[in-house]
């Protein structure tokens, strides 16, 4: 622990300690309360008819037979919902010049991707609703389809949105004006074009929503499997014209989200409208195929990049073009350009060079929308940068560790600004590089590799440094006009029995938010963790805040809890001081007891203080008003983001006859600042790495030329499974941020950020003696065999 916050030998000092998640047992025992399982009285079920065409005009919709089916309560089209819901547009002001067409829950006259919901049916149960779908007739007239990036950019390409001049959603450029000169004087230049497949989140529990509009009270309650209940409270209120105080969004247990459940989905908006039209609760749970065709996808980038170096291997400059296709609309309210924006800003981030130019072009096409998913942009930026670094190393005859050691920003050189304008408070690339070298027994792996090659076994070793964006300030969304909070709020109370309840705006998706908040509260108050109850995810109960996304739960939510608890502790000690006739500063709380700060001798339990304050206030000095509930908000200040860093390494084996890749071992050294719960941090890293490995080798949404998703089922879309996953070895460096008392930064995306880059480098390392290279993710057997010219 680099900056002692509490002495760890004290009882109830929980920061830095691996304690199990209090909710883990409940979920394991099948006691989770997921929206998918929710049944309300009088609840009806929605199902959606979807477009089989990637782009078509809707000529007519005939719903007569469906309406007549017994058990059907409502059949609604785009026109029906447009009467009660205002349209939304997925743009933000700080992305200058970006465009996107307005969206409605269901389309009025045109479908823009295969799988788009067109008609909603609400019935007694899902089976009847699905029966009714079969009775609906929609006449379509095919329109020209735009599927691939090149087609979409061609002059004269049919527009995805009629009336627009081109299919460009957004263009952005970063240029410090010195790049051409740097390349002209470079001793070495490496260049490659990379492609990154589309993939998607595949949460265990699909999207689920129960909207419950009560016309008598004018009150909308939405049970929503989401990370961000406040954002949805705001959106449902504004788009359906219901006062915010009469919209309640409850996000209880959720079976995975990874960013996917942050966005407005057409079906979800429709379900709210359906409930308003019917005055009854309406439930919709996406099935797996619907998830594949309507959940946001991510990545889908093509990046051309080059790097200039001097004769000794010093990186001089990078020049980048990122093309990304995002579907027919930009998502709301966070847009679909954040990923591209982060790609061009994160490229080269670990390194010292200053000359940088990048162009981003975000393009519309007839596919489902892409948007923010775990590690937004990071894996692409990391793979592009780190592959070029490896290419440069091999050109110069340098070892991958050596070239990185030579070029990373030195640990003692902070604060620093990246060539793209990011401000780094303090990172630890050198310490991480050194630690990884030893952790993975790099020399041993290299020796083994040489040995095995003699026997025709092709092992590869890859490393990848990364920088992760965490603890976002309003610079992320707020400045663009989105009503997405970057602050959090907490209400902590001492209960009459001397326990603590903490209502907090950050939410729990299984990563352990509630666990770390209870650790921080228990630690700061001086109380056993089991006496702290943390409550999240209900806009009518918990204070307004950003909730959980972009790695902010520990860094911002944790600091909120810390400050709120310190305030509560001050209030408790004030009362204690009155009772004990002491100075508050002479007292402390340890293990639920007020003690003498100096001697730690027990004076009285805090339960006794609560008893007196709540039930015998008459015994306190006149004029005393005990404040045993404290509310506190915290917004990050100082650096706009808390950047973290780390490095990953892996060892794998390529079967050069079949193209199959066996992952042997994966390593990560990570610096997320203060580690609150090492076990949870390690599991975040492991889960993130596994998702990154899925992207590296397996996951891809494959489309036909007619814009049909070809592999929209779990039999065909390959997610990473235990048999294919390697052991993951983890180590930490801790550089706490000085912007908060807690010093924590985010860790949720670090694993995903660099895992695929690491594998890409390792596969290329394995294939190097055979003269083959790979520049495309996922790395499939077909790509490997093609590179090896085996067919």
């Amino acid at each position, binding site marked *: 622990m680099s900056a002692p916050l509490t002495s760890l030998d004290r009882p109830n000092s929980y920061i830095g300690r691996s304690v199990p998640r209090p909710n883990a047992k409940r979920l394991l025992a099948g006691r989770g309360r997921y929206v998918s399982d929710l049944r309300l009285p009088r609840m009806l079920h929605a*199902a959606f*008819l*979807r*477009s*089989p065409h990637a782009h078509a005009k809707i000529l007519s919709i005939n719903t007569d037979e469906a309406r007549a089916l017994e058990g059907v309560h409502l059949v609604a089209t785009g026109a029906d919902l447009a009467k009660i819901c205002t349209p939304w547009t997925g743009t933000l002001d700080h992305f200058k010049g970006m465009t996107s067409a307005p969206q409605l829950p269901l389309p009025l006259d045109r479908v823009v991707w*295969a*799988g788009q919901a067109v008609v909603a049916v609400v019935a007694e*149960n*899902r*089976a009847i609703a*699905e*029966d009714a*779908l*079969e009775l609906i007739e929609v006449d379509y007239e095919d329109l020209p389809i735009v599927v691939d990036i090149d087609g979409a950019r061609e002059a004269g390409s049919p527009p995805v949105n009629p009336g627009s001049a081109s299919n460009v959603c957004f263009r952005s450029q970063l240029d410090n004006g010195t790049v051409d000169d740097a390349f002209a004087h470079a001793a070495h230049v490496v260049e490659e074009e990379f492609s990154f497949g589309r993939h998607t989140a595949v949460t265990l529990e699909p999207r689920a929503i129960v909207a419950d509009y009560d016309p008598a009270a004018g009150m909308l309650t939405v049970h929503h499997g989401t990370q961000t209940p406040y954002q949805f409270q705001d959106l449902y209120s504004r788009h359906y014209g219901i006062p915010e105080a009469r919209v309640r969004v409850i996000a209880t247990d959720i079976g995975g989200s990874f960013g996917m459940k942050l966005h407005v989905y057409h079906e979800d908006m429709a379900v709210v409208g359906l409930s308003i039209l019917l005055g009854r609760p309406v439930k919709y749970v996406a*099935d797996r*195929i*619907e998830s594949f*065709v309507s959940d946001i996808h991510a990545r889908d980038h093509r990046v051309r990049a080059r790097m200039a170096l001097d004769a000794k291997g010093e990186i001089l400059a990078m020049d980048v073009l990122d093309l990304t296709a995002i579907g027919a609309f930009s998502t709301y309210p966070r847009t679909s350009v954040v990923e591209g924006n982060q790609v061009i800003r994160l490229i080269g981030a670990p390194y010292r060079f200053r000359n940088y130019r990048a162009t981003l072009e975000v393009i519309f096409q007839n596919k489902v929308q892409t948007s923010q998913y775990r590690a937004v942009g990071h894996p692409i930026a990391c793979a592009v940068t780190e592959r070029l670094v490896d290419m440069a190393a091999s050109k110069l005859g340098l070892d991958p560790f050596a070239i990185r050691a030579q070029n990373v920003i030195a640990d003692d050189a902070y604060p620093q600004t990246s060539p793209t304008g990011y401000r780094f408070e303090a990172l630890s690339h050198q310490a991480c590089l050194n630690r990884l070298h030893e952790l993975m027994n790099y020399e041993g792996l290299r020796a083994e590799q040489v040995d095995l090659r003699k026997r025709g076994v092709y092992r590869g070793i890859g490393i990848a440094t990364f920088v992760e964006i965490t603890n976002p300030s309003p610079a992320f969304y707020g400045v663009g006009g989105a009503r997405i909070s970057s602050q959090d709020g907490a209400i902590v109370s001492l209960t009459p029995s001397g326990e603590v309840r903490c209502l907090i705006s950050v939410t729990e998706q299984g990563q352990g938010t509630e666990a770390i908040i209870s650790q921080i509260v228990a630690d700061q108050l001086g109380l056993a963790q089991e006496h702290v109850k943390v409550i999240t995810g209900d806009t009518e109960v918990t204070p307004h805040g950003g909730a959980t996304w972009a790695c902010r739960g520990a860094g911002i939510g944790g600091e909120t809890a810390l400050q709120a608890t310190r305030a509560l502790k001050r209030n408790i000690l004030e009362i204690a001081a009155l009772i004990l006739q002491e100075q508050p500063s002479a007292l402390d709380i340890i293990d639920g007891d007020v003690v003498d700060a100096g001697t730690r001798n027990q004076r009285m339990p805090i339960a006794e203080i609560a008893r007196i304050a709540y039930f015998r206030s008459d015994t306190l000095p006149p004029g005393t008003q005990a404040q045993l509930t404290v509310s506190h908000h915290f917004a990050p200040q100082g650096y706009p983001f808390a950047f973290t860093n780390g490095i990953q390494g892996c060892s794998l084996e390529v079967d050069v*006859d*079949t193209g*199959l890749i066996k992952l042997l071992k994966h390593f990560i050294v990570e610096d997320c600042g203060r580690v609150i719960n090492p076990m949870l941090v390690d599991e975040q890293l492991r889960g993130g790495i596994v998702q990154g490995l899925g992207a590296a*080798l*397996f996951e891809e949404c*494959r489309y*036909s030329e007619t814009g*049909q998703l*070809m*592999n*929209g*089922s779990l*039999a*065909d879309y*390959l997610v990473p*499974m235990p*048999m*294919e996953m390697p052991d993951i070895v983890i180590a930490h460096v801790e550089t706490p941020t000085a912007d908060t008392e807690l010093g924590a930064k985010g860790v949720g995306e670090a694993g995903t950020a660099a895992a695929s880059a690491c594998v890409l480098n390792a596969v290329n390392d394995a294939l190097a003696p055979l003269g083959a290279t790979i520049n495309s993710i996922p790395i*499939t*057997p*077909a790509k490997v*065999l093609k590179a090896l010219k*085996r*067919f």
Partner: protein
Amino acid sequence: MVTNLASRLVSRWDLEETAVKAKAFSYFRAATIDQALDAHARAGDDARFIAGGQSLVPALSLRLQAPRLLIDITHIGELRGVGREGGYLRIGALTRHCEMLSEPLIAEFAPLLHAAAPFVAHPAIRNRGTFGGSVALADPASEFPAMTLALDAEIEIAGPSGCRRVKADDFFIDLFETALQPGELITAVYVPLFKADQRFAFDELARRRGDYALVGCGMLGTFTGEHIDDIRISFFSVGNTPTRVRGAERALIGARLDAERIAAAQGALEGDLAPPESDEVPPAMRLHLARVLLGRLLGRLGEGA
């Protein structure tokens, strides 16, 4: 070809039809073969037998199939059991995939099936899926149907017009099309008993353990020393049906198993296989993988596999 779940189930992919709830159907639990056949006939053949349900239930939920009647055959005693009958091992249609792993008679007398079983799906599916269901469905990417070819097995079929036995060689006709007529039931599969002078080998190439293979192969050879008297080699995931590679077999029969013969057999595959277009595994790649796999398996056979 077999690249997605829907086409695997009924060779159709139509987004408009996505669903999670089956259409309403009637259910009948048959106690005897006759009852099952009779129920099928009375439903005007708008019926399906259900065994393990591991292929049928997903197809129903997706509404890719919507029969009026499901006839549950899992309580028909005559379809159960594994036993020796003359020179054959009779494997009842209801023998579950997991029993292929646990049943000693199968390990002893049909070891190729025993070797293939761990590659069929995952434990939960193996606990329910049946051998008869797998052969009846005749998924070209499935392990067991292809192994019936390598084993020269015979499929016993009960139908309205009585009982018959069809050689595996004559059973698989086209994509999901077999010699089974509507309303007919597979009752058992007869596998010639494994002999002391025989060797077998099985393997498949898959991106993840338990997935349908990119290419798979099983083989059964009869040897005198290193001399191949006879060999049957069957591939799966290479075309519309499980496929015996007769050209490769011919290149091996009557010869000693050596590097040159293995190369000749690999060379013959080009004439034996015509892998279909696929967005993920181009035909030339599949052929390449088939050659690699054949080479590896023959190598193992040479080592006395």
